[in-house]
């Protein structure tokens, strides 16, 4: 949030664009207000894809292309690079469309221009956050059995269908998945201390509530359902005694509207700068001090 008065866009030749790794639920809603009309479609997408549509209008003509672009950039950032042409050939096979060489080349150029738009949208922020890696490490630390670890891993995979990755750091999601797996098997989860993992109970609760919402309302669309078809009622049972637990605190809307971060991204400004936002303080301030 900024209180300095800035010159109007018309006179600007240069602007600053921050990268922020985590947003709260209301911040996400606030950003999406201008971009998405259909929330359910978004639930199947992954992080870049979700970040793209925080700031760009959602449109059924383009979501497939954005998914391809997200995969393309992710393949670079994860050091598992693929030629764009190869990705497109597979993508077209899946979609059952046939393209001539010339059409394929045109399509390739279109994705390349979308690539720069997506990179600008994420403010060239290449920091990676993976739930599964931490989940395995934390499970080992807590001496969780392999079966339970596997169950938690399935939950973690489904978590990408929610907005959790936009909201909270991966260790909170990991711990929420482990907690939920323990609860599903009626085991005790008292040994988990959030402060051991640089996180807070509120942030874990936030993840728990979102995961429960996903499994209670959209069970048939989850990966878990394909392996354990009969867990849905168990999630309802787990949710009932959790009526009074709190997730993360939300910012007041009046604060959000003053925050430049949500301004329309103006790609016509000649010079656009990218910085990583310094937002960790918010997360650390919620960790209880010893």
């Amino acid at each position, binding site marked *: *949030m*900024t209180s*300095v008065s800035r010159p109007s866009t018309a006179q600007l030749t*240069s*602007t*600053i664009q*921050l990268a*922020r790794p985590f947003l*709260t639920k209301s911040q996400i809603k606030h950003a999406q207000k201008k971009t998405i009309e259909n929330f359910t479609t978004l639930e199947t997408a992954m992080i870049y894809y979700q970040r793209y549509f925080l700031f760009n209008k959602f449109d059924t003509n383009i979501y497939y292309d954005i998914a391809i672009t997200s995969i*393309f*950039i992710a393949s*670079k*950032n994860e*050091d598992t*690079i693929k*030629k*764009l042409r190869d990705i497109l050939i597979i993508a077209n096979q899946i979609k059952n469309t046939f393209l001539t060489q010339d059409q394929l080349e045109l399509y390739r*150029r279109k*994705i*390349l221009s979308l*690539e*720069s738009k997506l*990179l*600008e949208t994420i403010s*060239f922020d*290449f*920091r990676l956050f993976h739930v599964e*890696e931490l989940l395995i490490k934390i499970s080992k630390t807590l001496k969780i059995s392999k079966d339970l670890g596997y169950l938690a891993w399935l939950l973690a995979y489904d978590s990408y269908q929610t907005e959790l990755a936009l909201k909270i750091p991966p260790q909170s999601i990991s711990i929420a998945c482990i907690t939920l797996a323990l609860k599903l098997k009626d085991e005790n989860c008292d040994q988990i201390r959030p402060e051991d993992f640089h996180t807070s109970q509120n942030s874990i609760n936030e993840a728990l509530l979102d995961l429960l919402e996903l499994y209670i309302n959209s069970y048939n669309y989850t990966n878990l359902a394909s392996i354990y078809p009969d867990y849905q009622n168990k999630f309802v049972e787990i949710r009932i005694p959790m009526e009074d637990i709190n997730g993360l*605190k*939300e*910012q007041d809307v009046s*604060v959000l509207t003053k*925050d*430049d971060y949500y301004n329309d991204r103006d790609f016509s400004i*000649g*010079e*656009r*700068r*990218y*910085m*990583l*936002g*310094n*937002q960790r*303080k*918010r997360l650390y*301030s*919620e960790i209880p001090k010893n």
Partner: protein
Amino acid sequence: MLETKNKPAPVQRYTKSKKVGEGTYAVVFLGKQIESGRNIAIKEIKTGQFKDGLDMSALREVKYLQELRHVNVIELVDVFSADDNLNLVLEFLPADLEMIIKDREILFSPADMKSWLLMTLRGVHHCHRNYILHRDLKPNNLLLAPDGQLKIADFGLARSLGSPNEDLTSNVVTRWYRAPELLFGAKHYTEAVDLWAVGIIFAELMLRVPYLPGRDDLDQVDVTFKALGTPTEETWPNVSSLPLYNNLNFYPGPSRQELRNRFLAATESALDLMNGLTELNPANRWNTEKALLSKYFTDLPAPTEPENLPKLTKKDD
């Protein structure tokens, strides 16, 4: 509590003056930050229809340098796009260690070498404690600031430490500075590859010529083991399971006396450090912490203060 307190930094403007270099993926210009008058280098990333979008090296540089801040690592001042080009604004660093090594009119004292090696190890230590492998350390990538500070640059091959289930490519690091595990095509390796390169750079500072100049990848294997001995199952358990461990000439390792003859000016503690860094078995090779705490750095002479280090004698322009 939920407020973010970061004020946006003032919008900086830059001038771009002369073009100073061109690499495979970028053109480098000199310039100034207008408000502060600070000299900077602008790396303009090339985009073209033949390239597959944003270059991997550019992505890596942005990814790692955005988060690293250390006096011995090059500073990424700014990232901006203008006229559909991506620009990286970096510290302006007029010289590199290769130029100094090649400049025959400069004499190095043992204290000078110690200072450069110390700064290199400090920069590498900072990368490693953030789980980043540089993977292309060589004198040419160790840049020198006008105040004498050495800065590690070119993070185009850098990556974060892989997890055990990930395969890494062994085709990294410029040939002469490539560690034996890379020569053998290992798919899993660690920070030790960077320390090998530092050891070879240390030797090059003393010799003033490249220590292990292989003509090609095959010759590199031979040159390396002729100088340092061929690893065997006894000295490096399981080495024979690496993909390219075959058709080797077996050379004995150098004796202490041979090393003394090879590096006439080196003290015993300098040789200990170099042996630690060029240990063939990566599991036994010294890490940055052990190297930085070695006796070499506490022995006299003390490392030269950066501002008193030798500078280039000729200016090219």
